[in-house]
């Protein structure tokens, strides 16, 4: 078949996850699971103080939600038989993601404790909720903001993909504003934008 476009003008764009960000974003988890026909999530949280906090916040978010039940786990070795979906803290998403659980919906909840955010791991939904992000340390915050800016600037310079450029450009002011306001939610959003942009260029693959 004859191509009507020139090869150098071809680009592709894909985003693998739905992003839900903002106030009370965690409360959307039961609805999103229900939309996928799931109501019994396995919730993977790390054995850390941050993990404890996440357990508390998630338990509260799941109240009056219509979930049939949920189980907290700390590692992949301890999976109970009954589950139909996975919610995983970003601390553990390197090991637990769509590759590990290909047949059920996987939701990643972003934690401020995670040393390196990685939005390139495959999940169906990413949740950014201020309650889990606010404990982020100042030094880590500044470091992350710098990493995001560096990544975005590199993509803007190098990429021919217009969508990548748009995402990278959008992440820059967010990262700068987050530094100015010390707003972790903006920072996490900037990271999502930058990582989505990087995904198109293959930087995260």
């Amino acid at each position, binding site marked *: 078949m004859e191509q009507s476009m020139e090869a150098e003008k071809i680009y592709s764009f894909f985003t693998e996850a739905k992003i*839900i960000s*903002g*106030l*009370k974003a965690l*409360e*959307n988890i*039961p*609805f999103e699971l*229900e939309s996928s026909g799931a109501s*019994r999530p396995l919730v993977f949280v790390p*054995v850390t103080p941050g993990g404890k906090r996440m357990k508390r916040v998630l*338990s509260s*978010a*799941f*109240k*009056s*939600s*219509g*979930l*049939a*039940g*949920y*189980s*907290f*786990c*700390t*590692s992949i*070795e*301890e*999976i*109970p038989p*009954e589950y139909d979906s996975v919610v995983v803290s970003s601390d553990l998403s390197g090991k637990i993601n769509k590759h590990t659980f290909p047949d059920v919906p996987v939701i990643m909840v972003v934690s401020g404790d995670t040393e390196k955010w990685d939005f390139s791991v495959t999940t169906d939904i990413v949740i950014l909720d201020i309650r889990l992000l606010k404990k982020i340390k100042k030094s880590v915050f500044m470091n992350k903001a710098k990493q995001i800016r560096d990544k975005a600037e590199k993509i803007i310079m190098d990429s021919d993909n217009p969508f990548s450029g748009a995402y990278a450009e959008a992440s820059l002011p967010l990262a700068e504003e987050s530094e100015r306001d010390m707003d972790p939610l903006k920072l996490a959003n900037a990271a999502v934008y930058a990582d989505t942009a990087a995904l198109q260029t293959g930087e995260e693959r």
Partner: protein
Amino acid sequence: MKEIRGITNRILEVDLSDKAWSLKSIDPEDRRMYLGGKGLGLKIYHDMFSGSLSGIDPLGEENPLVFMAGVLTGTGAVCSARFAGVTKSPLTGIMVTSSCGGPFGGALKTAGYDGLVIRGKSDVPVYIEIMDGNVIFHDAGELWGMMSSETQKNIAPSGKDGDLVIGPAGENGVLYANIMSGHRFLGRAGMGAVMGSKKLKAVLVRGRAYRVRPVKELMFRKIRTRASGFIAKNSFSKKYRSFGTASNVLPGIEAGYVPVTNFKYRTDRRFEALSGEAMAERYKTKSSSCVSCSIQCGHKGTFPDGEVKQIPEYETVGLWGPNIDNYDPDLIGEWNLLMNDLGMDTISAGGTVSWAMEAGEKGLRETELSFGKTDNISKILADIAYRRGEGAELALGSKRLSERYGGKEFAIHVKGLEMAAYDPRGAWGQGLNYAVANRGACHLSAYPLALEVLFKFLNPYTTRAKAFWVVFFENFNAALNSLQTCQFTSFAYVLEPFPVNIFPSFMLKIAMQYFPGIAVIFLNYGILNGTYESITGIPLSQRDFITAGKRIHILERYMNTQMGISAKDDTLPARFLTEADTGHPVKKTVDLGPMLKDYYRIKGYDRSGKPDSRVLRKLGIVDSTEKIKSVKPGRKFFKELYVKMMLFVVGRAISAAAAVDPGIKKEFEKLPGNFSFSLGVAGTDLSMKVVKDKNGAVKYAGRLKTGENPALKLELKSLEAAMMLFTFRESTATSLSRDRITADGNIPEACAVVRILNIVEIYLLPKVIAELAVKRYVSPENKHKNRVEIYLKTLLG
């Protein structure tokens, strides 16, 4: 010379059965969780048996001997030339870990290994030599039968290499045989017998192949300077440097913790002749300590026969002095040397012999031993080592003998390990320490006696705060012994840094006795975790350090419970619980029960004495042994009630407003006949439904029933989204735009309903609030008149 940055993470595994060796690496996560030395040794042992530790014969081929250099070993850190031995004890039948300051640890590290695991069993006596990355198996036929010191002279005459040797006691399976390295020992619970059972006479490591350098050198040097300073000015360190551990004799006589006549009594003035101070004068002692030691508690001195001998430690002096009614220090020095050469633990040997003396006195067993009779002790020690005559039985330890002949009430052991020379009736916290220590009656597990008697921070005759401090120092010492620094540094590291050093003693006393939870916050032992971090480059906070200690201690307990230990074993010999008349003015027995109860609670043990599965999981000791339970989500009752009420009010108000307000009437007129819509909350039964009948009348129809499908279904995604809407923090339009509401139906109809809801909100709410709740506030005509009518119809129906 090649360099090692801090740690090698390499374990040399030698199989004596096959005369083969291999290298294993340490998992970085295990390194972080178990630090090194004792902790990693236990973890390695544990993992060799995949968690099934019952049925291991301590003297069988299957019982490995694990030797681990510490994190600090070989770096030149203060008091760092230590290593750990880990195995299953033939004396107690449970795990034994031991720390030794001999040259073996440093040699192993500078040979390029963090640990040595010896497995299997040789058919003939061997000794192994580790050199230049190679392991050589030598025939030890000629060495077999030699004394420990003689063996050392034969295999390592220069004294520069790292050695482990056993004496005749180890060869002949004396259950409390030790292993010698340089002039220090892996002393307790029979490691020498395990080595002997493998027909392994000695291990020689020729180190110095690598230079060990810390990862963060500047940090390391700074901490080392601070550590040396703290040790130099600490009173406890100074006393030990001058007079050795036998300086504990004089405070012991006053406090009543010294063992007299098999622990029947707990004070005796004649014991003063055996004090460190008296021996320093008598023998003109000089330091003879471990490598890299700043404390220098070990001493040598010239005895009346002109021979220079090692001065016995406090424990040896106590158990071979007043405990057998002997007050001659020359004899104790001679026996000490003999026991070291024969290769046996002076504490267990002393405890067993004193039991035999009392058993003989009570007519339970025939014996050539009796209190105060000293002329046959040297002979009986040799008989024990060679398993001859009465010595063959005495080689089994006091527990087995008391089970055979009776006299359990005065067999001074816990879990089979003979007690060191501290009578717990003079320091109750020390009693708890003995009862719960992992390897049996080990005085060093937490060593609360220092707080009770030596520093006088705690009242020795109360149960208050004892469990707290025993648990804290168990964890602390487990971590410290995994770094493999000397336990005697802990006093300087805990008491000298700021802020503890500025507190007056009386304040520390009050805080530690009555507010231990607060007192512990002020303890600053950053020297230890800082040293670990500077050497390995692995960040370790003070909290991580103590958590690692807790993990290590509980892992050891967990292993012991698999080997049969339970709550019934956590006790003291009956003598300390029933006999109050001890010759000391304070006539009290140890009130163990309440301390044990507190201890179990703090430690997280269940009634049977096993660590709770949640504790094991939390510390990462086990992955998951219990089934994970599914949790049913709870309810936010008051929020549900509020939203339910608001849905009712809004539904009725729409119905009322449709009859009153021309704007709403107009919107409904545009909607098709029989139109109905609902507003609800996903995942709950909270909803309301409004219907327009064929005559155009709008009615509130109550809750949406299961299976009903209105023309338009508005659903708030969560109860919190409903709360945002009904507490007017977000308008309906904003909720829709923020994706908090889903609309199932036609978009124009949804927009009409949103407009209707906006107008209703303007009627229902005061202007200040309504302005927040709606996108654009437009005051309707006759607002106040209509509002009254709507309110009345809403409330009255």
